[in-house]
């Protein structure tokens, strides 16, 4: 098993507060890794470090064995690290299709093409439609994104993320605030990606049932440190994890 | 030494005047996140209405009051009609207040006539006295005092009262503040009125300082105010004071030692700040 992403004593502090503290992990290629941990444990911050939104105070990050610690967000995105955000982040005034098309276009070599008509790039549009189908949004492509329901916006984000053709997908609470009813649809999308796309997925979630269903491996962050890692089953059994994160309710929830 | 003292005092006075001008602008931006390019218009209106009352009644104090009242009234109208529809949208704010600036400047000519008007300091502030070889111009000392007073009063308001917090919170999320039982519209209007009154007051104080007022000075001084606000850090009240004094002193000393560059001094200062410290010398937020 090769690690596609690897961190080495990765740390970041915000004015003395260590949000991520000496985390060394290996994220296996083409596997599904989940990150859990209490609120404020540093999960989102860890993602921010991986994707380049933040730069670490110390430690190093490797992507396919190459060090990327000093690279910018865009450079990393182009190498193959894509992420979704905890808050929805789309182009509100553009149509659903235009949203995805922009993402598709960013992958092409025509980023600075300023003389040709975009209509000549039919392939972008086709690809975008295909992706929308994948996330079950094909009926809404002409709607302005702002008018989508919350769950649909998250699906749109997924489509845009898929368009980036990145090898690694970092998903930050893709189902937050979503009705129970909608959750399965998202899980389906994620599952589809996992099975069909052959990509590495890293997921942050608080919904334990989802974690249990999807993950190959689970990492637990606590106060910025890596508290435990292992298969979902191992993690649920882990007593420290139970007292620090799951609390007494977990069993009930599963019930 | 005398020379340096003299340049310093005069530079400080100019700086304080600029500060008074910029204070309203920075207040409105810092608290309400509104870029008010009509600031210069309020400034000229303060100057003209104040000077008009001052010259007809002969009372300087009455002139100052008139300017402040004009500022408050114009501020209320402006906030209600012009600013309210564009809260939260910088681009639109810039565009719309620029339009208001044109209208206010031109209206001055309709109401007060197109000619420039002169204004002299009141008798009790006229002239200067000499301490050793240093000439102290009374009116300038007066301005320095007023500047310090206004700075202290506003700082107190911002730091020691809940008003400052409420306004800042209101900018970030108006609805949320309302659900906390606060009438944010009134608060916003009040802040805008205070900002406008400060602009008007500085117009009135400027009049005897430069001796003349004219309708076009609005845009000119608004640009100066913006330069100061950018140098100080958008929205930082302390920054504006500091930047205004810096600009005042730079002007005074540049004019003496490197007159060639004095015309470009403000612009160069701002360009340098934008390049090396774009958040301004005293930035409060990212």
């Amino acid at each position, binding site marked *: 098993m090769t690690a596609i992403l690897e961190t080495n004593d990765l740390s970041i502090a915000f004015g003395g507060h260590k949000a991520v503290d000496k985390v060394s992990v290996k994220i296996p290629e083409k596997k599904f890794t989940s990150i859990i941990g209490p609120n404020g444990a540093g999960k989102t911050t860890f993602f921010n470090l991986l994707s380049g939104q933040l730069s670490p105070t110390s430690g190093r990050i490797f992507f396919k064995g190459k060090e990327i610690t000093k690279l910018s*967000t*865009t450079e990393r*995105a*182009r190498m193959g690290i894509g*992420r979704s955000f905890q808050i929805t*982040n*789309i*182009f*509100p*005034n*553009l149509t659903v299709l235009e949203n995805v098309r*922009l*993402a598709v276009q*960013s*992958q*092409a070599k025509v*980023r*600075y*093409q*300023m*003389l*040709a008509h*975009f209509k000549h*790039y039919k392939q*972008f549009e086709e690809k975008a439609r295909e992706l929308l189908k994948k996330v079950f949004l094909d009926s809404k492509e002409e709607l*302005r994104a702002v008018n989508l329901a919350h769950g649909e916006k998250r699906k749109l984000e997924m489509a*845009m993320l898929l368009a*980036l053709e990145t090898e690694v997908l970092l998903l930050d609470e893709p189902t937050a605030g979503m009705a129970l009813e909608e959750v399965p649809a998202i899980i389906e999308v994620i599952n589809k990606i996992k099975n069909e796309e052959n990509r590495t997925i890293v997921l942050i979630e608080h919904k334990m049932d989802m974690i249990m269903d999807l993950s190959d491996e689970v990492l637990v962050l606590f106060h910025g440190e890596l508290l435990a890692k292992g298969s979902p089953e191992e993690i649920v059994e882990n007593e420290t994890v139970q007292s620090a994160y799951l609390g007494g309710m977990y069993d009930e929830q599963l019930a | 030494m005398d020379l340096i003292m003299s340049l310093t005092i005069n530079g400080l006075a100019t700086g304080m005047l600029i500060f008074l001008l910029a204070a309203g602008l920075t207040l409105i931006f810092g608290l309400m996140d509104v870029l008010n390019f009509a600031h210069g218009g309020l400034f000229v209106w303060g100057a003209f209405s104040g000077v008009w009352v001052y010259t007809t009644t002969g009372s300087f104090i009455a002139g100052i009051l008139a300017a402040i009242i004009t500022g408050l009234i114009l501020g209320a109208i402006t906030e209600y009609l*012009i600013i309210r*529809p*564009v809260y939260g*949208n*910088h*681009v*639109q704010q*810039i*565009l*719309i207040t*620029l*339009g*208001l600036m*044109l*209208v206010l*400047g*031109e*209206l001055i000519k*309709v109401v007060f006539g197109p000619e420039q008007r002169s204004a002299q300091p009141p008798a009790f502030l006229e002239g200067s006295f000499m301490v050793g070889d240093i000439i102290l111009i009374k009116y300038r000392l007066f301005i320095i005092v007023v500047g310090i007073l206004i700075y202290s009063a506003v700082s107190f308001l911002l730091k020691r009262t809940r008003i400052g917090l409420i306004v800042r919170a209101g900018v970030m999320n108006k609805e949320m503040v309302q659900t906390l039982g606060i009438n944010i519209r009134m608060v916003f209007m009040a802040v805008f009125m205070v900002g406008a009154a400060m602009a008007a007051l500085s117009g009135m104080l400027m009049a005897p300082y430069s001796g003349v007022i004219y309708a076009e000075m609005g*845009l000119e001084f608004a*640009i100066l105010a913006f*330069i100061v606000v*950018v140098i100080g850090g*958008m929205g930082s009240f302390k920054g504006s004071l500091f930047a205004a004094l810096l600009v005042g002193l730079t002007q005074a000393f540049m004019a003496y030692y490197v007159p060639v560059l004095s*015309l*470009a001094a403000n*612009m160069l200062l*701002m*360009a340098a700040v*934008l*390049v090396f410290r*774009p958040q301004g010398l005293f930035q409060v937020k990212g």
Partner: protein
Amino acid sequence: MMLRRMETSTWIYLAIALALFIVPFIFTGRSVLFMIMQIFIFGIFAMSYDLLLGYTGIVSFGHAMFFGIGAYSAAIMLSNGEASIMSLLIGVLIALIFAAIISFIAGILTLRLKSHFYAMLTLALAGLFLVAAEKWTSLTGGGEGFTFMIPDLLRDSGVMYVICLLSLLVFFFGLRRFTKSPLGKVLVAIRENEDRTESLGYQVLNYKVIVSVVAGVIASFAGVLYVLTLRFIDTSVFAVDVTLDALLMTIIGGVGTLVGPLIGAGLVEFAHHWLSDLANVHWIFERWIILYGTVYILAVIFFPQGIVGTLQAKFRGRYNGLAKK
């Protein structure tokens, strides 16, 4: 084959363009042509401004700087050398290169910051150019300005008219293509949500700098045409008013559309002419700026899309305006 692929709107524009070529045969008076030429020139200038404001969401307060650079480059070349086509071409070349360099530097420095910083820096730079033009008297004639000769060919206002019209068409169709290119789409994305565009892997700064340079170069060309029609130059080409004019034209006509600024230019020039003529009827029209400003304010509040944008929204039933920031 090519022809059939063209959009209907293109046909309409081409028809209008053709009609415009006939104008000099109908109105032979120079003063009418002069006015129409000014509309073309400011139309070009406003389009370049719209590229910044309407398409990319960048506010500039110093666009006059590029206009002035173009104007002075041409004027100085023509008055110092002989008034030949050659000197004019050299002047144009200098104008474009100079504008490109300045806009590149201004862009690199401030486009990475929040919107108002670019506005302020361009304002400052334009101010510096104004000061320089006033002080460098030997080159610029200072505040009083100077008159100069233009190549004989261009002295015929019919020829000048055709040149202005051709320039307008080239820039209009060029920019239309530009905004509909893949790159143009990215610009709109930047306007709508800059952070997101960045995280899609687009290097936003590069795009903004490209736009800033393109807009600067075009504005500078408009400046060249302007002095050619005026045959006189003074520092007023660097004045804030010039930028404000572009702003008003763009807003009133419609941001984010190219026809908008053109219509805006026509309307503003025409309204200006007409309203100030009405001053003989009633003194209030001497204060036409009040009227003008009021209309403008109302436009920003009630028709933030401008004339063209509002019409488009009506027809398409779709609202496609300035993003809320």
